[in-house]
C-alpha cells in the first residue's frame, strides 16, 4: 500500500485486488489518495468503487485506518468487511506502528468521552436544538449569540470579583488603613448616606435608580477605598488592581470576540460571499434536514419559495432599472439622496431629543418621589423611544428609495446600528459636558476641583448610576413589551377572526432588531464597568432572564420570519457590530482614565490627578531590574525591530492569501478542461466503436 507523490489536481488510481469475496461486492477495490476527493465517474454504481487509504500510514500513522473507513461512501457491510481485512493486516505492521495506532485509538475514545462530559456542561444545548429545528438557523444564531454574551459576562464578573471585590471586602473587614492626603475641603465633601427618616417606598425607588442605600455600596465606584496594603511577604494595591482589572477586562472581551469571529470569518471567506450560484445553492442546499414538526416544514417550504421569488424579482428589478431612461434615473437618484438626508435628519432629531432629556434630567436631580424617578429615567426613556420610532420611519423611507431587497435590509441595519450606538454616545457626551463644565476646567464651577463638585461630588458613581439605570430600564421594557404587547396580540389574532386581526397577524421574531438590542445592552455594560464593577453580574442575570423570556415569546407568540437571515454570515455580522460597541466603550474608558480628574471625595483614585497616574507611581516601586527591562521594552531599540518583524509577517500572510486565491482559480479552470477532455474522449470512443461495428458488419456480410 505504498503511496506515490502526487501533483495537485491529478487523480492516480491504483488497482488493488483483494482475495476475499465481500458480501455484495464482486468488483476490485480501488485505492486512491485522500486528497483527491472526487470518485470515479465512469462507474454507474457509485457505491462499490472506492475506498481511500490512510495517506501517511508509512510516514506518521497518526490518521489510523478506522477514521478513513468512516468517511468512505460504502454500504455498511462492505465497510465492516474492509475493517476486518485491515485488522487482519495489523500483525504485518511493526510493533512501533501498532503501539502508535493503539495510542491514537485510545486518545480518540478519551476525546469522545471528554466531549460527552463537556456537552453536559454546555448551557441550553437541547433548547437551542429545538429552536433551530423549529425556527431555523437565523433565530438559532441569535440565541447562540445571547449564550455567548452570558458566558462572557459571567467570566468577566469572576475576574472582577477575584481581583477587586473580594480584596476590597477583606480589607474593609480587616479595616486596613486608608491613605489620606490634603486637598480642598469642599472637593472632599461627599455624603451619600440618606439623612433623616427614610420612607419605606424610598427603598424601592432607590433600588431602581441606584441612589440612597444602593449608592454607597460595592455596586458603585465610590465605595471602594484606596487601600494599599504592604506586608513583608504580601502587598496589594487596590487602586492599581482596580485599574488593571478594568483594562484586562476589555482586552479579554476583545480576544473572545475576535476568537469567535475567526471561526465565522473562515466560512465567509471560503465561500467568497458571492452571489454567483444563488439559484443552484437554493435548490440543493437550502432545505434544512433537521427541520422538525409539520408547521415548521410548511414554513420552510414557503421560505424557499419566497427566496426563489425574491431572486426572480431582483432579476426583473435589475432589468427594469437598466431599462430606465436618463430622466427617470436622475429623478430616482435625487430622490435617494433626499431620502438619505431625511433619514439623517430624523436621526439627528433623535440625538437632540436625548441630549435635551439628559440635561433636563440632571437639572431636576433633586426631585423626590415618583416624579423624581421619572426624571431620573428620562434619558433611558428618550433613547428607547428614539430606537423604536426612528427605525419605523426609516422603513417607510426605504419604500420610497426603491433599492433592491437585499440592499434595503443592509441599509436599514446600518442605520439602526448607527442610531443605537451614537445615541448612547450622545448621552455620555451630555454627561461629560455637565461634569467637566463643557471641557473648560477654568470656568467658575470647575476651577476648584477640575470637575463640577457641587452637582457631582462623586461623578464616577453618577455615571455608573446612569449605566445601571439604562440596563435596568432595558430589561423592564423587554418584560413590559412581552406582557403588554406580544401576549395580547397573539390572543387577539388567535381568538378574533377579524380581517384586521388576520392582516396584522402573529408576531414575527425579527432577528436583526433583537441582536442590536443585545449589542446595545452589552455596550452599556462595557461603558459602565469601570464605574459600576458589579454591572457584569447584573448583566449576566439580565441576559439569562432575557433568554428565557425570549424563548417563551418565541414559542408561544411568534411565527418564523419569512425573510430569513443567513445564519453563517449573520454570526460574523453580529460580532462586527459588537466590536463597534466595544470600540465606543474603549474610547470612553481611555478618556476617563487619562483626562478627567477623579473625584476627591470617593473612590480608590481620590488623590491622584488622573486615574492612570497610579501606574507610573507604582512603577517606581518595582525593583531596579524590572524597571530597566520595562524601559527597554518601551524604547526604540526594541519597538522598531518588532514593528519591522510584524510588517514582514503581515506581508508573508498577504502573499500566502493571494497565492491561495490564484491556485483556487487555476484548479477551477482545470476542472472545466478535464470535463471537456472527458467529453472529447467519450465522443472518440463512440466514433471508434461505431467504426468497429461497421467493419464487423461488412466482414460478416462478406462471409
Amino acid at each position, binding site marked *: 500500500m505504498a503511496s506515490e507523490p502526487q501533483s495537485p489536481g491529478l487523480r492516480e488510481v491504483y488497482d488493488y485486488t483483494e482475495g476475499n469475496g465481500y458480501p*455484495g461486492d464482486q468488483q476490485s477495490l480501488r485505492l486512491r489518495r485522500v486528497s483527491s*476527493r*472526487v*470518485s470515479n465517474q465512469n*462507474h*454507474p454504481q*457509485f457505491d462499490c468503487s472506492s475506498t481511500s487509504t490512510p495517506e501517511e500510514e508509512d510516514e506518521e500513522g497518526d490518521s489510523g485506518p*478506522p477514521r478513513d*473507513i*468512516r*468517511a468512505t*461512501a460504502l*454500504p*455498511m*457491510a462492505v*465497510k*465492516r468487511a474492509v*475493517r476486518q481485512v485491515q485488522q487482519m493486516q495489523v500483525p504485518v505492521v511493526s510493533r512501533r506502528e501498532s503501539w502508535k495506532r493503539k495510542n491514537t485509538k485510545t486518545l480518540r475514545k478519551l476525546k469522545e468521552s471528554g466531549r*460527552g462530559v463537556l456537552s453536559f456542561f454546555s448551557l441550553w444545548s437541547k433548547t437551542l*436544538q429545538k429552536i433551530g429545528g423549529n425556527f431555523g*438557523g437565523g433565530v438559532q444564531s441569535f440565541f447562540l449569540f445571547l449564550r455567548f454574551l452570558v458566558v462572557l459576562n459571567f467570566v468577566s464578573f469572576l475576574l472582577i470579583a477575584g481581583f477587586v471585590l473580594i480584596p476590597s471586602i477583606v480589607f474593609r473587614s480587616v479595616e486596613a488603613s486608608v491613605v489620606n492626603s490634603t486637598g480642598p475641603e469642599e472637593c472632599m465633601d461627599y455624603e451619600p448616606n440618606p439623612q433623616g427618616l427614610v420612607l419605606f417606598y424610598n427603598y424601592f425607588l432607590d433600588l431602581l435608580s441606584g441612589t440612597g442605600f444602593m449608592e454607597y455600596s460595592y455596586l458603585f465606584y465610590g465605595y471602594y477605598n484606596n487601600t494599599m496594603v504592604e506586608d513583608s511577604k504580601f502587598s496589594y494595591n487596590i487602586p492599581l488592581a482596580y485599574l488593571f482589572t478594568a483594562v484586562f477586562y476589555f482586552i479579554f472581551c476583545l480576544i473572545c470576540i475576535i476568537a469567535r469571529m475567526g471561526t465565522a470569518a473562515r*466560512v*465567509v471567506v*471560503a*465561500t467568497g460571499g458571492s452571489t*454567483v*450560484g*444563488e*439559484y*443552484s*445553492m437554493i*435548490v*440543493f*442546499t*437550502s*432545505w*434544512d*434536514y*433537521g*427541520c*422538525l414538526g409539520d408547521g*415548521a*416544514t410548511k414554513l420552510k*417550504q*414557503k421560505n*424557499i*419559495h419566497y427566496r*426563489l421569488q425574491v431572486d*426572480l424579482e431582483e432579476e426583473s428589478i435589475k432589468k427594469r432599472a437598466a431599462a430606465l431612461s436618463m430622466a427617470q434615473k436622475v429623478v430616482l437618484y435625487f430622490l435617494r439622496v433626499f431620502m438619505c438626508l431625511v433619514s439623517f435628519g430624523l436621526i439627528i432629531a433623535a440625538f437632540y431629543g436625548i441630549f435635551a432629556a439628559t440635561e433636563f434630567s440632571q437639572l431636576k436631580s433633586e426631585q423626590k418621589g415618583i416624579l423624581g424617578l421619572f426624571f431620573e429615567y428620562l434619558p433611558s426613556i428618550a433613547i428607547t423611544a428614539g430606537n423604536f420610532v426612528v427605525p419605523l420611519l426609516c422603513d417607510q423611507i426605504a419604500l420610497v428609495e426603491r433599492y433592491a431587497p437585499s440592499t434595503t435590509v443592509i441599509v436599514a441595519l446600518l442605520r439602526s446600528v448607527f442610531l443605537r450606538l451614537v445615541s448612547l454616545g450622545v448621552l455620555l457626551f451630555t454627561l461629560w459636558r455637565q461634569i467637566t463644565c463643557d471641557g473648560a476646567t477654568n470656568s467658575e464651577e470647575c476651577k476648584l476641583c477640575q470637575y463640577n463638585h457641587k452637582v457631582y461630588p462623586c461623578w464616577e458613581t453618577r455615571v455608573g448610576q446612569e449605566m445601571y439605570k439604562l440596563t435596568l430600564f432595558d430589561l423592564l421594557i423587554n418584560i413590559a413589551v412581552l406582557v403588554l404587547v406580544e401576549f395580547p396580540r397573539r390572543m387577539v389574532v388567535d381568538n378574533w377572526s377579524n380581517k384586521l386581526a388576520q392582516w396584522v397577524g402573529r408576531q414575527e421574531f425579527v432577528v436583526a432588531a433583537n441582536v442590536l438590542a443585545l449589542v446595545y445592552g452589552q455596550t452599556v455594560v462595557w461603558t459602565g464597568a469601570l464605574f459600576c464593577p458589579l454591572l457584569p453580574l447584573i448583566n449576566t442575570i439580565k441576559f439569562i432572564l432575557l433568554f428565557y423570556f425570549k424563548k417563551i415569546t418565541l414559542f408561544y407568540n411568534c411565527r418564523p420570519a419569512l425573510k430569513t437571515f*443567513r445564519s*453563517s*454570515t449573520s454570526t460574523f455580522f453580529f460580532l462586527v457590530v459588537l466590536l463597534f460597541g466595544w470600540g465606543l466603550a474603549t474610547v470612553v474608558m481611555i478618556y476617563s482614565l487619562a483626562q478627567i480628574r477623579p473625584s476627591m471625595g470617593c473612590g480608590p483614585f481620590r488623590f491622584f490627578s488622573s486615574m492612570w497616574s497610579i501606574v507610573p507611581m507604582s512603577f517606581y516601586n518595582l525593583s531596579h531590574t524590572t524597571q530597566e527591562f520595562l524601559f527597554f521594552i518601551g524604547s526604540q531599540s526594541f519597538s522598531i525591530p518588532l514593528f519591522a518583524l510584524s510588517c514582514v509577517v503581515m506581508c508573508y500572510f498577504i502573499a500566502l492569501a493571494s497565492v491561495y486565491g490564484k491556485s483556487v482559480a487555476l484548479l*477551477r479552470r482545470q*476542472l*472545466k478542461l*478535464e*470535463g*471537456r477532455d*472527458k*467529453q472529447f474522449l467519450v465522443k472518440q470512443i463512440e466514433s471508434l466503436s461505431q467504426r468497429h461495428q461497421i467493419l464487423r458488419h461488412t466482414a460478416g456480410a462478406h462471409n
Partner: protein
Amino acid sequence: MGNKQTTFTDEQLEAFQDCTFFTRKEILRLHGRYRELAPHLVPLDYTNNPDIKVPLALIVTMPELKENPFRDRIVETFSEDGHGNLSFNDFVDMFSALCETSPRELKTIYAFKIYDFNRDSFICKDDMKRTLNKLTKGELTPEEVTLVCDKSIEEADLDGDSKLSFSDFENMVSKAPDFLSNFHVRI
C-alpha cells in the same frame, strides 16, 4: 463499558464504532429506535447478525424523516437493494452519514446520490425539476420551474454538457455556506 447488554457482542459494537461516527451508547439507542419501527420484525438479540430489513413505508414514519420532502430518496439511497428496505447496517449508516461530525466530502457524495433521481450519476434537468417540485410542493408555476432549473444548470455546469456531474455538484456545494449545517439530521 460495564453495562450488561445482550443486543450486540463487544466485537460488533467495536466494528460499529469504527465504521460510523457514533459512540456505543448512541448505537444502542439507534437499535432501540430501529426496533420501535417494527417490534415484531426486529429481534432484540443481534449477536448472530440476523438478516432483517424494515420496509420503506415504516422508516419514513420516523419523526426525523416524516416531514422531509426527500425522505423516500434518502432511504432509497442508503438501502442496499435500492428500494428503500433498510437493514440495521443501512439504518446506522444513514444516520451516521447525516450526523453532525460527518465530513463534508461524505455528505456531498450522499447529497448527490439523493438528488440523482434516475441514478445515472448525473443530475439532469429532469432530476432538477423533480427536486424543485418536491422542495416547493408545486407552488411555482411551470415557467418559473423551468427558469430556475435553466439558471441553476447554467450556474453550476462547468463542463458544458447541460447536466451536473459530481464534480460540478461538489464545486457548487463547496461555495454554499449553509450546506453542512442544513444537511444534518439530529437523532
